[in-house]
């Protein structure tokens, strides 16, 4: 087990995800402890830890734009055109996000003085949001494809008919088409955990730039919680590569 932990930690992404999880766990804890005056010391330490993790991760993100550009070159060659388009645009937006993020880092440490930090930070959040939207589009496309395939499967059709005749008093059964659709969706997600995990991760991640850009302001607690969940899912998919969505 120790070997597996070490192998995980040796990947640059592995460590980054652990730091990210810690960062958002701190943010969540700070939010939960905000109204407790006797825990001010602990809150100060958590804030310091969160800031250090964030600053450290920004430094470690230098050079990640190259990774995304290489990934974009690879996804351009996928056989499924729509999938390739979604992933390529997502990767390009991620690369732009990293470039803006690196510029903000350079401004923070004083290497570049003449840029407007707020504007570059907002742009970084915008590109991050676009890449998440493209990833969600891809997830939706894959789910629809899988649902179509499953709907044509005869074994599934018989299970569906059994389900529809089972509980007529349930609310959704009033609209049998809706009930059938939800059943199909849930069965598809259950049989393909990779897509389900990726969708949940992307939805959780979405709250972070939405809050930052002011499009949908949630509280620091919600952002912290969503960030923590998405980081934990990220750690899970890295530790168990079978749970990672491909490509």
């Amino acid at each position, binding site marked *: 087990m*120790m*070997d597996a*932990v*070490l192998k995980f*930690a*040796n*990947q*640059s*992404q*592995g*460590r980054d995800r652990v*730091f990210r999880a810690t960062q958002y766990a701190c943010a969540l804890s700070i939010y939960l402890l905000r109204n407790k005056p006797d825990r001010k010391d602990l809150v*100060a*330490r958590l804030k*310091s*830890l969160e800031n*250090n*993790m964030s*600053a*450290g991760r920004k*430094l*470690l993100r230098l*050079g*990640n734009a*190259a*990774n995304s*550009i*290489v990934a974009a070159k690879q996804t351009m060659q996928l056989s499924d055109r729509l999938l390739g388009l979604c992933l390529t645009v997502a990767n390009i937006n991620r690369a732009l996000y990293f470039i803006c993020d690196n510029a903000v880092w350079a401004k923070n*440490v*004083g*290497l570049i003085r003449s840029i407007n930090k707020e504007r570059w930070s907002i742009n970084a959040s915008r590109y991050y949001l676009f890449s998440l939207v493209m990833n969600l589009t891809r997830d939706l496309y894959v789910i629809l494809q899988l649902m179509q395939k499953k709907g044509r499967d005869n074994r599934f059709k018989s299970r569906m008919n059994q389900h529809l005749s089972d509980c007529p008093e349930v609310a959704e059964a009033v609209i049998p088409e809706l009930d059938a659709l939800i059943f199909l969706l849930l069965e598809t997600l259950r049989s393909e955990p990779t897509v389900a995990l990726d969708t949940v991760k992307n939805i959780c991640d979405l709250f972070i730039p939405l809050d930052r850009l002011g499009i949908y302001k949630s509280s620091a607690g919600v952002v912290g919680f969503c960030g923590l969940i998405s980081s934990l899912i990220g750690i899970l998919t890295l530790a168990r590569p079978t749970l990672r969505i491909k490509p």
Partner: protein
Amino acid sequence: MDSWVRFNTQSQGKERVLRAAQYACMLLGYTLHKSSVATDLQRTISELEAHMSLTRKLLRLGNSVEALQAAKTTIHLSDSVLRLCLTIGHLNRAMYFACDNVVWAGKIGIISKLDQQKWNHRSFRYYLFALILNVTRDVYELCLLLDCEDCYRITATPAVMWVWLRKRIHQIGTVLYNNPPLLLDLLKNGCDIFIPLDKLGIYQTGPGFVGTCGLLSSVLSIVTMLHPWLKLKP
């Protein structure tokens, strides 16, 4: 681009680049200080160096476990000198990482009343012991290779000390030239050793020299990562 990506995905790769950048900043800061120019830039460089140092400390969290695992592997080596040097070297590295983690916790404020100077010194002491053991291992490997060389050339010992010394140095040079992994490792450890010697006050050389040594050893380390055949095994 692909080799950069592969290099980047290894956690150690990024850490080495950061180390090289940190010591480059140290050297640059010293150069600017010597020429008494651009105090603003000097301040930025020293802040950047501190930022990189703290981030590297963050990356080192958990490295003690790695060093202990490495010690568990080297304890099974057949050669007794190698076994001793490498195992104790790894154990010292594990202690260095543990002390370094405590210093990090103190620096960012998780542990409040911490004597940072004391723990810093402790960590550098363990680092120095680990480096001394690494150099011992390098010298041992060199002696083994020289013995092999001597087996093949049975020549009469020259009467003059100076001629004998020159011949020996030439032999060492040839052996090292034919064994690039050993040469690189010896150079790297030789450069690294000046860092704790300076920090502990045993042999103070100044930030310029320390920066140069640190930069050189980081570059050598990056080269061995990019070309794994250059890494000394075990």
